[in-house]
């Protein structure tokens, strides 16, 4: 009898202690960002000091709200590179702090070096900033998941809309830097792919000089018409100017009254502060409340990366890196990101499929893929380099 009584008391005590909340499982996510930010021609488009990072911070909050119910806790380890600092070394520092996932906003070469530097430590990078196609093609890596869209996805998104609009004759003006030429190449591919014709190309040479002078627009409004005069008949001017040298000067200044697209005018982006469809207002409100500014595409790319990790963690109910990664790369993974359909990873190169917004700086004009462009697997694969064309071989 006494034994039964004691047993009962011990049993109840054990129940009592096991009922006390266990410490939450910790999941650390790193955020590694490049040293500088490219200044824009437009004053209102200058990136904030926390561009990108702010999105990741909000996602950590969202992950933790969910994590409360699953006994999971997420933290963000932020590392901003100083000029000349090596990204790979910085990533190894994060690895030493037991960070298994690093959201990276780095240029392509630095991203690859970093990925290779930490691949033996089981760390996965989430590419939130680099749009280079080669990172998803010949330079693809098993430990890099791409959340940022590719240059080809952006160009295709724009081309589909212009073709839908029947604005098929393009006059293209290309900048003189490498990334401008890459953008032009993507646009040429898109034109050929979707049935547009580039009637003429011109190059805008970057001869340096201050971006803003006291004379302001007076000179520019005379230069742009001269730059764009005597072009063959065209419907739209497509500007390839990722270097931010001239494109923003083109709208309303072309010789012929024509709209502008590409790096100015109608711009393809993964996200915009004007996006209000599919419940996006909730997202915009939360971001505004936390960060006191509007959300950019880079913010959203970073948010999505961190949310992908959180979503995987809630589905597998584990913080184990291998388990999470297996789920992320598996057929059941998808993430909701306020773009009207679930986003999934292309299994052949780990690129996140996504609709692309076409924005004019104030409103969302359209969302690609456009109606009518069909695909066997997913209409989102009409954007960018598709599986039959890929040069990526992930082993």
């Amino acid at each position, binding site marked *: 009898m006494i034994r039964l009584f004691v047993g009962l008391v011990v049993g109840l005590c054990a129940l009592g202690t096991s009922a006390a909340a266990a410490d939450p499982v910790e999941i650390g996510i790193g955020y590694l960002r490049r040293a500088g930010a490219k200044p824009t021609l437009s004053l209102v488009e200058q990136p904030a000091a926390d561009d990108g990072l702010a999105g990741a911070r909000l996602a950590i909050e969202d992950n933790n709200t969910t994590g409360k*119910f699953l006994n999971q806790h997420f933290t963000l380890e932020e590392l901003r590179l100083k000029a000349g600092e090596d990204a790979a070394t910085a990533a190894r520092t994060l690895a030493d702090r037991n960070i298994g996932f690093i959201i990276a906003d780095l240029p392509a070469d630095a991203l690859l070096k970093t990925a290779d530097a930490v691949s033996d430590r089981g760390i996965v990078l989430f590419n939130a900033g680099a749009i280079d196609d080669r990172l998803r093609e010949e330079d693809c890596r098993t430990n890099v998941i791409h959340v940022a869209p590719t240059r080809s996805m952006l160009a295709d998104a724009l081309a589909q809309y212009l073709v839908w609009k029947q604005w098929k004759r393009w006059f293209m003006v290309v900048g003189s830097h490498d990334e401008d030429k890459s953008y032009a190449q993507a646009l040429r591919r898109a034109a050929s792919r979707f049935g547009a014709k580039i009637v003429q190309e011109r190059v805008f040479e970057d001869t340096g000089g201050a971006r803003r002078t006291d004379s302001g627009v007076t000179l520019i409004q005379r230069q742009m018409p001269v730059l764009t005069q005597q072009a063959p008949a065209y419907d739209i001017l497509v500007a390839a100017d990722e270097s931010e040298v001239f494109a923003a000067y083109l709208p309303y200044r072309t010789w012929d009254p024509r709209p502008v697209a590409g790096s100015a005018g109608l711009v393809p982006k993964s996200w915009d502060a004007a996006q209000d469809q599919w419940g996006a207002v909730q997202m915009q409100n939360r971001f505004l409340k936390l960060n006191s500014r509007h959300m950019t595409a880079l913010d959203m790319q970073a948010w999505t990366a961190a949310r992908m990790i959180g979503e995987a963690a*809630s589905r597998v109910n584990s913080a184990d890196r291998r388990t999470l990664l297996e789920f992320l790369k598996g057929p059941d993974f998808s993430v*909701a990101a306020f773009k*009207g*359909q*679930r986003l999934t990873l292309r299994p052949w190169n780990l690129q996140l499929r996504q609709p692309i917004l076409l924005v004019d700086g104030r409103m969302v004009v359209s969302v690609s893929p456009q109606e009518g462009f069909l695909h066997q697997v997913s209409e989102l694969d009409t954007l960018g380099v598709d599986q039959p064309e890929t040069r990526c071989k992930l082993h």
Partner: protein
Amino acid sequence: MWHRCLLVGTILWLVGTLPAGAFIAYVSNEKSNTVSVIDTDKWAVIKTIKVGQRPRGIEFTRDGKFVLVAVGDDDTIQMIDTGSQEVTDSLPSGPDPELFIQDSAGKILYVANENDNTVTIIDLQKRTRMGDVQVGVEPEGMAISPDGRFLINTSETTNMAHFIDTETRQIVANVLVDSRPRFAEFKRDGSELWVSSEIGGTVSVIDPAKHAVTTKITFDIPGMRKEAIQPVGISITADGKTAFIALGPANRVAVVDVASHHVIKYLLVGQRVWHTAFTPDEKWLLVTNGISNDVSVIDVAALKVIKTIQVGELPWGITIAKQ
């Protein structure tokens, strides 16, 4: 001779006691900031009531005296007097109310505050705030178990259905569902809880006692890409046999045999169909088509769409009670 009198008298008596037939539906128009009032005898809008900004969740009070409508951008819930069909009062709902639900007695109102990750609890008689519950990210769907013991709230970005004990106001269980759950509905006998996942494209059937998903209802429309099938509103008949699920941009309502959890038919309605409501006699199901700005009327017995009624811009929620 007297047979005929009896016959006529009986007919007259029958006609006299036949129900009037007309019900009144209130539809919230998210963009035009109005509520359209529909008469089900005429199948037409008989009045348009101006309300606050961004009206969404809309519901008759249990006593039928008011229609409550959540005006999210005004951070309040307005009360429309059903007699005068005018807004007469408002409730302290907490910020950005979207959907809400009353307890069976009509004394307590539970409100989902989408921006705040909260469910606010309101005393309907005193018209005061009683408390709140912290839930997941972007709460929307609300349901109460038929025995009144549990409040269910779904959170869109956390992807869960939270079970909240109505007495202690504590969350007792969380059930993970597919992406972006929007709506929760119990079978009238309390044996199943259905939760729609808009982006996941499924409806999860949950065992409310075990707090587990027992099966998922999936949809397949020939020629339509899966991503466009986005279930939102759910209405289950009182006899628990048939369910109707609004499929958003698939522009269809799925008719589901509850016993087998299989779709038996798809009914083509207007564009972006989201929310649904039965007439009290369950002869008709009305659904709101957000993009085509109209309401479709479905004959429940015949499983046919018989009418489309133009309402305001971006019709969202619908509630129906006796005239």
